[in-house]
């Protein structure tokens, strides 16, 4: 079958699947991130034992509770405060990769669907854990400031590193990761085979004698 109909079919399925997949994901809400929240909770309370109390799911959001309270806009020890200081984290910012990947995966004609889909979800889940960790670090950095950075005997990443990791995991990873996994898993599908074999061929030829386009000009 020529490639153009595959592309049209893919785009049609993408738009057909997009709305139900995103609605289903919204219905599930933050609970999709529950295992990731549990793992990040363990990571944070072991990394920052004097700062982080717990991270847990609260409705569709996660709550990052600290070991501080608040008094006149300042973080104070919990014993001297009326309320425990906590920050809301939106895990759906990182879990949005799941419906997008689902749409791309099932809109592409392929021999088998489920095995590679589960494999892709595992990779996305690992990225989600790291993304959620970056979201929490950013909340701690912005809201606790010096209290967070000046923990004795604890390695705290540089503010710029946290900032860039946060932006990267919010703006790029949730949509790019599904796209890369889709391309990798779809390299043998009718939709992508010829385009991606061109990458492989060009890379091989490029190693030998420059890009195919350069070879064309030189042969001219």
């Amino acid at each position, binding site marked *: 079958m020529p490639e153009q109909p595959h592309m049209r079919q893919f785009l049609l399925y993408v738009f057909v699947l997009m709305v139900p997949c995103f609605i289903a994901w919204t219905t599930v809400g933050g609970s999709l991130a529950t295992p990731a929240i549990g793992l990040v909770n363990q990571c944070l309370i072991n990394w920052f034992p004097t700062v982080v109390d717990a991270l847990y799911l609260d409705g569709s959001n996660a709550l990052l509770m600290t070991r501080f309270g608040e008094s006149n806009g300042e973080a104070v020890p919990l014993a001297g405060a009326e309320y425990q200081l906590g920050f809301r984290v939106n895990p759906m910012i990182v879990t949005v990769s799941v419906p997008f990947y689902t749409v791309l995966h099932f809109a592409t004609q392929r021999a088998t669907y489920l095995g590679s889909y589960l494999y892709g979800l595992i990779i996305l889940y690992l990225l989600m854990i790291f993304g959620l960790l970056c979201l929490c670090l950013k909340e701690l950095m912005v809201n606790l400031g010096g209290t967070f950075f000046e923990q004795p005997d604890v390695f705290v990443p540089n503010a710029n590193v946290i900032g860039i990791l946060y932006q990267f995991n919010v703006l790029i990873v949730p949509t790019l990761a599904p*796209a890369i996994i889709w391309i990798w898993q779809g390299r043998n599908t009718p939709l992508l085979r010829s385009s991606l074999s061109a990458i492989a061929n060009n890379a091989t030829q490029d190693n030998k004698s420059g890009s195919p*386009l350069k070879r064309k000009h030189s*042969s001219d």
Partner: protein
Amino acid sequence: MTRFLILFMALLVSLFTLEMLVTVQDHVITPFTSLLARISAEIILPFDSSVIAYGKVLQFKDTGFAVSIESGCNGVEATIVLVAGVLAYPANWKAKALAISIGFLAVQALNLVRIISLFYLGDWNMEIFTWIHLYLWPSLIMLDVLIVFTVYLRYLSRLDQSAETGNA
């Protein structure tokens, strides 16, 4: 393929870090984002005279509702992904420049649709605005990048095939 992916990731992280620099934000990103707000207002004005743009902000004069176009909403990150993909792929510089130029226009054209649609959605219903703004539109923009990149690969593939036919 592995070489392509490594080069792509290296370029992506470098370009993204460059974009985050305060100097680049002040002298390139913020003026570009303000330009997007003005272009959006120019597109809307013939149909709706109640819209004004100042800085990165687009506002309804009557209801007072306004949106500020921030990082992630200006299409720069999507363009960076496309540029990294095109630069990482082995081809001549003319083809790369053409792909980046056309790809940039394709991303920004869809991004203007995103800005204008979100502007009206926000004035109507904030919950729907938030959902579509945070989750749906970023996926659509990345889909746009994927399509542009796939079309570019096919263009190169056809050039290669025609060159081989010519040689034969």
